[in-house]
C-alpha cells in the first residue's frame, strides 16, 4: 500500500506526461509544442525523484529541461517567425500516424501486461529494498573501472561529445 501522497503525485505526473505529450505532438504552434515538451520533461524529472533517483532527476531537469530546451527555443526562434502556424495535417497522414502509434502502443502494452517477471510489488516495497542511491556511490561508480562501474563509458562519451562539437561546428560553419 503506497502512501496517498505518492499516489497523488503519481497521478499528477502521469496525467501531465500523457496530456502534455499529446499536446506537444498535436499543437500547431511550434513554440507551444516546445513548451509542452518542457512540461513533459519536468514531469519525467519528477517521476525520477519519486522513484528515488534524485541525481538523475536533477540531471534530467538541468540538461533536458534546461539545456536542450534552450537549444530548441533558439532553433525555433532562428527558423520561425512569431505566430507561425504549421500547416494542417492531412487526414491521411494522421490516420497513418494513429494506426502506427496505436499499434505500437497496443503491442507494447500487451507485452508489458503479459511479462512473466511482472510482480505486483509496490513502490514502497521497492524503495525499501533498494533505498536511495547516494552521490558518493554514483561518483565511485562513474570513476571506477570494475564491474558495474562506468569509467570507460564515461570517457567514451566524452569523445562522443567532442566529436559532436566538431560535427556541429563543421555543419554550422559557413563556406
Amino acid at each position, binding site marked *: 500500500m503506497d502512501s496517498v501522497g505518492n499516489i497523488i503525485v503519481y497521478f499528477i505526473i502521469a496525467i501531465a506526461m500523457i496530456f502534455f505529450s499529446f499536446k506537444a505532438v498535436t499543437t500547431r504552434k511550434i513554440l507551444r509544442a516546445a513548451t509542452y515538451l518542457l512540461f513533459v520533461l519536468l514531469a519525467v524529472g519528477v517521476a525520477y525523484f519519486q522513484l528515488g533517483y534524485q541525481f538523475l532527476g536533477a540531471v534530467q531537469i538541468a540538461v533536458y529541461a534546461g539545456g536542450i530546451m534552450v537549444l530548441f527555443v533558439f532553433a525555433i526562434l532562428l527558423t520561425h517567425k512569431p505566430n507561425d502556424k504549421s500547416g494542417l495535417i492531412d487526414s491521411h497522414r494522421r490516420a497513418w500516424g494513429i494506426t502506427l502509434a496505436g499499434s505500437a502502443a497496443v503491442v507494447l502494452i500487451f*507485452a508489458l501486461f503479459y511479462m512473466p*517477471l511482472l510482480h505486483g510489488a509496490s513502490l514502497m516495497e521497492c524503495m525499501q529494498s533498494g533505498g536511495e542511491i547516494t552521490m558518493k556511490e554514483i561518483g565511485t561508480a562513474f570513476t571506477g573501472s*570494475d564491474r*558495474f562501474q562506468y569509467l*570507460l563509458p564515461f570517457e*567514451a562519451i566524452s*569523445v562522443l561529445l567532442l*566529436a559532436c562539437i*566538431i560535427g556541429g*561546428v563543421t555543419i554550422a560553419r559557413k563556406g
Partner: protein
Amino acid sequence: MDYSQFGSMIPELIVLGIFMVVFLFDTFSGEKGKKILTPMATILFLLGTIAIWIVPASGEEIFGGMYVNNTATNAIKAILNVGVFIVLLQSAKWVQSDEVAIRKGEFYELLLVTLFGMYLMVSARHFLLFIIGLESASLPLAAMVAFNKRHYESHEAAIKYIMTAVFSSAILLTGLSFVYAFSGGSLYFSDIAVNINRGEMSGLLLAALAFVIAGIGFKLSLVPFHLWTADVYEGAPTAVTSYLSVVSKGAAAFAFFIIFVQCFGSVYSDAWEWMMYAVIILTITVGNLFAIRQKNMKRFMAFSSISQAGYIMLGAIAADGLGLASMMFYIFVYVVSNLGAFAVISTIEDNTGKLSMDDYNGLHKTNPKLSFLMTLAMFSLAGIPPFAGFFSKILIFTSVTGTGSWALYMLVLIALINTIISLYYYLLVVKAMWISPDEPKIGNFESGRCQRVSLVLCGAGIIFFGLVPYIYQYCYDAVMNSSDIIASIMVFVFR
C-alpha cells in the same frame, strides 16, 4: 580503479592518438601546414593499421568485462581499418576541392571518431558501451554527410540520416530497456545471456528483440529499416557514401553477431532466428528489386549494399564460429569490392562530375582501365569466380547450410535466387560500359595518384583475396582463438 586497463585498448588508443594529432595539427598549423594534412593523416593511419594487424590482441576482459579486445575483434578492426584507409585514399582529391578544403581537418577528425565508435561497438560487452559506440559511429557521420555544403542534396541526406538515426536510437533504447527487464539487473552481455532463458519467452522479450534488431538494422540498413539508405548515399559526398556503405556496415554486422549470439544465443531458435529469417529475405529481395531500376550510380550502390547486407547477415543467422568467420571474410571482401566500385565512381565524379549510369555508356573506349576495374568490382559483388566475392558468398552459404535445417536451406535457396537478380543489375553496369553502342560521354582523364593507389589496391584485393586462402584462414583463426565468443556459441546455441 585501475587506469592501466586503458593500456589494453591498443586499437582504440591508436585511433584516438591519430585523432588527437590531426586535431591539434589542424587547429594550430598555418595555411602551409594544412597542405601536408592529407598525406600525414593517410600515412599515420596506414602505420596505425599496420600496428593493429601486427600487435596481438590480449583477449582479456577489462573494465569488469565491459570491453574485450580478442583476436576476432582485433581482426574486424583491422578489416575496418583497411576500408578506412582506402576511403582516405579515395577522398584525397575530394578534400582538396574548394568546397571542402577548409574543412578537411574536420573530415579526418570525424572519420576517426566514428571509427573509434565502431571499435567500441565491436569490442563492447556491455550495452551501455555499445550504445555509446553506436552513437559515436553514427552522429558524427551526420556531420560528414552534410559535408558538401554547397549541395542541397547533402543537406537533405543529412537531415534524413540524423532524423532516422535518432529515431532508431530511440527505438533501440526502448528495446534495450525491455531487455534490461530480463537481464537480472546487469547489462553485461554475459549476464544477460545467463538470465534470459528459453522457458520464459514472452511478448516483451520478442518486442525487445525486434526493437534491437530494428535499432541495429538501421545501421546495417536491413529492410524495412533501410529506407534512409538510398537517399543518404545519393546525397552524401561520395567518400562518405563509400565509408557508410562498407565500414559502418561491417562494424554493425559484427556487433550484431556478438550481441545476438552472446546475449540472445539461448533464444536463437525460439525467437530471433525467425525474425532474422524474415528480415534477411526482405533485405536481399527488396534491395535487389530497388537496385534494378536505379540510374544514379551512388543510389544504385546503395541498394546493392542493402542486399549485400542481407548476405552478410546470413553469417549471423548461422550463429556459429564458421558463420562469424565467413561473415568477417564477407565483410572484408565486401570492403574491397564495394570500395573498388566506389573508387571508380568517385574518380569519375571527381574528374568529370558524372554520376549517372547512362554517362558510363561506352566508358571502355576512353577509360579502359577504369572500366576493367569496375567490371571486376561488379563481378565480385555479384559473386562471380575467380573474384573474391564468389568465395565470400559461397563460404557464407556453406556456413548457413551447416546447421542442417531445412528452413535455412530454403533461405540459402532464396538468397541464391536473389543473386541472379543482383547479377542482372551488376551486369547492367558492365553492359553500359562495354556493350552500349553510344559514344562515350566521359572523356579520357588522368586519375589522381592516391585514387590510382586505391584502385590498384581494390583490384588486387578483388582478384587475390579469394584465390589466396589466408584471409579467410586469418578470420577463422581469429574467431577460433577468441575464447569468449567460442564459449558463448558452445553454451547457448542449441542444435
